[in-house]
Each structure stands twice: as structure tokens, then as C-alpha cells.
């Protein structure tokens, strides 16, 4: 079968829209179910964003409710905590992205280099396991460690003759605890992503390198890392797009909603939840979510732009 020539811009324009359409009809129809799903569940609900600018009334519905302009957004910026919330959200997420990248890549390389084959699979499964636990479960596991009366740590401290620590009211310790649990929970998942890329690297490269007398370290630096780079960039750009969304389970469940910890655990998602759970204002909730989405969108485009500047081939779009 002779494939028709790829349709470049100029060719298409010459052929006319109808002809191109007819030529690509099977492909278009094949894409149709996915497009319909996209439209129904991604684009259609976007009209609900109007809610962010309205005072919702049930009988009037989304479109008929009264406009209130930007009033719904005020609660995000008028609080004295606005700075703390933004700082916590961005810094924690930046730290998580960085640590996740470094640790997942090192673990992926380590697993595939040192053990290869079978045992690598066993370790991989072990690292992956926490990813499937819900944060509620993890919060109780943590509580069994940190509980003042019955916690493992306080029992250990008592055993060695130290005074117990009131873990849930000492904010200083929580950046570390939160980071630990977040990484413990997610790093296995990213590791698997990188391992799958690693298995795709042709062995020829390594064989050639070994013949040339390359050390293991040189192989990693010159072959493995460059091959992993596109994956690293894609995952990081995607993560940056979600930098303004904090993991609600991590920041709400793990500290057990403890007040004294707010300065280090309050993030935009928990703030919105605590602010609106009493009043249940849908307009304000929509406003918060729109704000997060817009910031995320700007950041993804920005990050991609930066990547394209430095290395056009690795850019996402």
C-alpha cells in the first residue's frame, strides 16, 4: 500500500479543505469518540466557570444568577494569611518536585544498574506500595507514631528517659514530616516511570561504551541521563502546572487538622476548604479553583517556553 504524502500546510491549502477532510476521514472518525468525550467532560463544564463571577441562586441556575464581578475572589487575598498560604503551597510543591525528580531518577538508575532483572522488580513493588494507600490511612499510621499518649516515638523517648513531645502542636517539626511522607508515598510511582524509559535504551550504547573503556559513572552521565532527559522534562513541566494545587490529603489529614500547625500546614486547598465548609458558597469555591487553574496554565506555558528557549527539541509543545 502506498501511503499518501504527509499533508504539510502548503499542500493542504492547495488541495482544499474538503479533499483533506475526505482523505483523513477514517482518522477523524477514529478520533471522534475521544473528541466527544473531551468536549462533554472537559469543555462543556467550563461554562460553569461563570459561577466564579456570580451569586448562585438555585431557581435562577448558573446562567441566570446575578453578577458580582470579582467579589468571590476577595476572600483569597483579603486574609492576613494570604502570604503564608501562597508561600506554603509554592515552596512545598517546588521542594516536592525537586526531591521527587532527584530521588526517583537515582532510584530508577540504581535499580536498573545494580540489580537488574528479578530483584529489581521486588524492590520496585515495595517502593510503589505506599502510592496506593489513601492519605486517611497514612494519617492514622502517622498518628500511631506521633500520638502523645500512645505513639511509638513518645514511648521510645520515654524508654530512653526523655520527655514526650507533643508532635501535633509543634510546627517546627512538620515541614520535615510532611516532606518525608509525601516523598515516601509518591517516589515509587515516578521511579516506575523512569524505569520504563530506561528499559527502552538500547544495550548497544552501553556495549560500545564498555569497549571504549567507559566507567559505570561515565555510562550513567553520558548515556543514561541524556536518554532520560525528555522524560524528566515532561514530568517536571506537568508537575509545575500543578504547583498551585496542594495535595489536600497530605496537608489536611496528616496533621489531623491541628490548629497550632497551621503556619506550616495551611495551603490554598485547605484554606478554601476551611473557609467554605461552613458557608458552602459555590461561587467562592469556583473562584478559588479558577484562580488555581489560571496560575497553573500560565506556569505550564511559561515553563515550556523556557525549555524551548534552552532546548527546542525537548519542549512539550
Amino acid at each position, binding site marked *: *500500500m502506498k501511503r499518501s504524502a504527509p499533508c504539510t500546510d502548503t499542500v493542504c491549502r492547495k488541495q482544499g479543505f474538503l479533499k483533506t477532510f475526505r482523505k483523513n476521514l477514517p482518522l477523524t472518525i477514529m478520533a471522534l469518540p475521544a473528541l466527544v468525550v473531551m468536549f462533554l467532560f472537559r469543555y462543556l463544564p467550563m461554562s460553569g466557570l461563570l459561577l466564579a463571577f456570580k451569586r448562585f*441562586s438555585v431557581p435562577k441556575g448558573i446562567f441566570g444568577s446575578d453578577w458580582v464581578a470579582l467579589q468571590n475572589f476577595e*476572600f483569597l487575598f483579603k*486574609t492576613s494569611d494570604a502570604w503564608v498560604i501562597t508561600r506554603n503551597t509554592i515552596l512545598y510543591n517546588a521542594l516536592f518536585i525537586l526531591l521527587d525528580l532527584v530521588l526517583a531518577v537515582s532510584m530508577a538508575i540504581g535499580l536498573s544498574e545494580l540489580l537488574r532483572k528479578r530483584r529489581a522488580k521486588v524492590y520496585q513493588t515495595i517502593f510503589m506500595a505506599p502510592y496506593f494507600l489513601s492519605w486517611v490511612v497514612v494519617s492514622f499510621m502517622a498518628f500511631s507514631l506521633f*500520638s502523645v499518649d500512645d505513639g511509638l516515638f513518645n514511648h521510645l523517648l520515654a524508654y530512653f528517659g526523655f520527655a514526650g513531645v*507533643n508532635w501535633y502542636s509543634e510546627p517546627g517539626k512538620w515541614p520535615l514530616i510532611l516532606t518525608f511522607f509525601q516523598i515516601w508515598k509518591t517516589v515509587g510511582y515516578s521511579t516506575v516511570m523512569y524505569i520504563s524509559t530506561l528499559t527502552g535504551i538500547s544495550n548497544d550504547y552501553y556495549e560500545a561504551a564498555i569497549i571504549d573503556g567507559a566507567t559505570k559513572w561515565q555510562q550513567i552521565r553520558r548515556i543514561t541521563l541524556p536518554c532520560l532527559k525528555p522524560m524528566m522534562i515532561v514530568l517536571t513541566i506537568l508537575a509545575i502546572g500543578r504547583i498551585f494545587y496542594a495535595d489536600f490529603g497530605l496537608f489536611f489529614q496528616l496533621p489531623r487538622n491541628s490548629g497550632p500547625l497551621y503556619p506550616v500546614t495551611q495551603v490554598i486547598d485547605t484554606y478554601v476548604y476551611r473557609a467554605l465548609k461552613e458557608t458552602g458558597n459555590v461561587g467562592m469555591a469556583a473562584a478559588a479553583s479558577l484562580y488555581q487553574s489560571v496560575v497553573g496554565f500560565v506556569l505550564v506555558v511559561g515553563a515550556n517556553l523556557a525549555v524551548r528557549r534552552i532546548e527546542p527539541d525537548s519542549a512539550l509543545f
Partner: protein
Amino acid sequence: MKNTMKRMAALGVSAALAAGLLAGCGGAPAGGSAPSGDGDITTLTWYMSINPVAADTDKVIQALNEYTREKIGVEIDYKVMANPDYKEKMPNLINAGEYFDICFTSNWTTDYLQFTGKDAFLDITELLPQYAKETWEFIPEAEWNAVRVNGSIYGVPSYKEMGWQGGIVYNSDMAEAYGIDMSAVKSLEDYTKVLETVAAKSKAEGKNVVGVSGLTNAWPMAAPYESLTGNPQLPAAGAVPQFSNFADMKDQAVFNQYASEEYMNYCQTVRGWNQAGYLGGDPVNYDSDTANRDNDFNNGALFSYFIQYAPGTAESMTASSGHGVGFVPLMDPLFETRSAMGGLLAISSASEHPEKALEFINLLNTDEYVGTLIRHGIEGTHHSAVGDNQVDKTMGGTLTDNGYDYTYGWQFGTPFNQKWDISYPDNIEELFKAYNDSAIISPNNGFTFDAVPVETQVAALTNVISEYAPSLETGSVDPAEYIPKFLDALNANGAEALVAEVNNQLTQFAAG
């Protein structure tokens, strides 16, 4: 030729996929369509929240329908959910415009004021005297006034104990064994001595009994005030003269209760308890686990806890805990606007049969057969009658789970026109009456606050309060250091604007 065949095949597959997808979407009709009257029988859709959903619910509703069909030509399409589910689902159903005639609403689930503000409920002020005359006359005027929003009534309140009374339930067997005279306890300060005794005597026995829990609810009981916003946590309180407290706020109609001397005193007292070890190591987490608390209380590992009391509670707790239970009130019952919002039945603003819905609510409140049926199930199947006014859910035996029983059925309407289980004292209705007669009616009963002008501030303040209040009110932190911080944070997030707005609306309320 081969090419064409391939294209045809691809087309066919894609078309099949697309068709399958669309068929999947076309299934259920969007939204509920209104059930229409069938002959003379009207079907009412009733969304209800009750814990737990009893196994024999369908049987009971069937019996109910047989009765109501005859009596008022109504059948009920009963959609019941357990409280935690209802709290999550019902607001979404209403927001999505789902059809219903009657729904349960309150200030703790599917918020009455919030949805009234969203025009979800029907104004029944005019319809009430006509279609629910007995109920309209039977429920006291103070209750009706309390549920008014801008002068109009949007729901029928559950008429039960009027107001709330804070106090301490305690293990009376233990109190006796340790020689504690609970009748001497009149205030929080008096209780310190009791806790001291419990700690000392239990340690001597080699036990480690937690003295008291439930402190996250205790502050408004120690110094009762009127919650003008409907939320006792928000900093907008009004003094109730009968309690003669808040002397330092005397010249303000609305004040920030956290800035009062009473708050400092309360926090100092519980700080003392906390440091003396009467509260266990971590009172905030202890309070959040009520199942554990009940277990400890029943096993004698916990001496007492703070509760909002209703008549008969100590008696029914004695039955369930396996030891004597006593109650010390810290205040007289207080009836304020929010008290009437513990439970209401509202009618949808989109309901096609509001008159029939009201007639049905009227039956729930005034018909003893309907009230008893929905609370205790079918006679002979779920309970046996004892005398004229009582039922026995164990049917004279030791049956514990009979398939349908709501011990205290106030969520359905009023317990007064229902039969009581024999685990309650015979004179329970008199106890309720005495309680209601002793209730202090708050100075601004009937005032409902419209939070819309200060929604931004309320959102920020809610966060500040959940950051500071639980640890201060359980004595986990030093009040001398943290109360000033707390007040600064409140003021930085609009506490003054809130107080000013409440004051403003209160003046208008008093004027008109």
C-alpha cells in the same frame, strides 16, 4: 481496492465506537422529572437524613403509605440517607436542581439559612395556618419566630427541647466510690476540686482515669452568650442578662467574646486542668474520637464529659453504659434563634404540591400513629405497645436489633406526639415541659443574620478560629501568650467589620 477495504473497515470500527459512546450517554434522563399526581393520589418526594438507615425502612414506609393514602391522598417516595451521606449529597442535589417536595434541613446539615438564601425553599408563611393548622398552633410562637428569615418562614421546625443546656455527664458510681458530692458543682471553677479528687483517688488505685473530656464544646457552656450570627464560634456575641456575665462588655450590644475576661478565665482554668494531667495527654485528638470516648466512659477510664443535655439523657445513658450516670447543669437552658434550627422540614421552591406536602408534615407532627410508626416502626413487628403512651422496642425480651427503631425521633417532627420507648422515664413529656418552661429566651430571638455582606470576612475568620480556638479551649497552650495573638489575628481578618455588620442588622431588626 485493498486500500478502500481498509478504509471501510476503519470507518466501520470508528462508527461503532462512536455509536456505543453516544448510547452510553443517552441512558438515564437528566435530572428527576416531577412525579405527577396519579388519580387522586399525590406522590411526594421526601429526602431525609437519619442515622442509621434502618433495615426495615421499606416495610415501614409501605405501612405509612397505606395510612396516608386513605387519610390525605398522599404517597411518599422516601429517599433516606445516613447523616454523613446526606451532608455531602443533599447540598449537591439541591444545587443541581433535583426535584423534591420535602427535605430535611438544619444548621448542621444542608444548611437552612444558606439554602433559604439561595431561594431553594418555599416561603410557607401564608400556607401554614391553612394546610397545617394543628401544627401551626401546637408549636410555640418563639420557635416560629426563630426560623423566620426576613419575616418569612421556610421550614417547619422540630419541636423538642427548647434551647440548649450545657453541663457535665459523669459516672455516678465512680463519684460515689470516691466520695464526691456533685451537687456542689455550680461552675467550672468548682469542678477543679472534683477533678483533683478523681485523679488522686484513681492513681491510688493504680488506674489512670481521664477526668473530663469534650472541652472543645465547653467554652460557651462556661459563659453562655447569644450567638448572633447563628454560629457560636464567630466573634459576634450578645449578652443574656439572666446569666449576668460579660460585665466588661456591658456597653456593647454585640461584642467579640474572645476578647472578654470570661474567655481568659475559662482558658486559664482549663490550662490548669491540662497541666495537672486531668485531660489526658492530647485532649484535642481525644475529643475528635467519640467512639473511643464512649468506650472509655463505659469502661470507667473516663470520669465525665461536657454535653448539651436533653431531658432523659442520663437515664438512657445509664441503660447503655452499664453504670450510673448523673448530670450537672452549668446553666439554665437558653433558647436562641439557632436552637430552632437543629432540625426542620422544608418544602422545595420547585415543589408542585406544596399544600399536600404541608398536610403530610402536619400529620408527622400531630398524628400519633404516624409519629410512632416513623419513630418506632410497626407495632407487633418492631415494638410492642406498653400502656397507652409507651412502646417496648425489645418486645418484652432482650432483642437489641429489631430492624427499625429511632430511639429519639425528633428529626421526623416532634417527639411529643409520638410514643416513647420504656427506657425513658414515664414522665418524660413532663420533664421536657419543665425544661422548656425553665428556658431563657434570648433577647434577640428571631434575629437571623444575613452573612452575605461579610462573607469574605467570615471565610477568613473561620480559618483563624480553627487555628487557635481548639488548642486554647483545651488548655493545650498558654492563654496569656496565645489569646493576644488570637485577638490580633481576628482583628486583622475583619472581626470588627463583622461585629459592626451584626450591630447594623440588629438595629434594623429591632426597629422593624
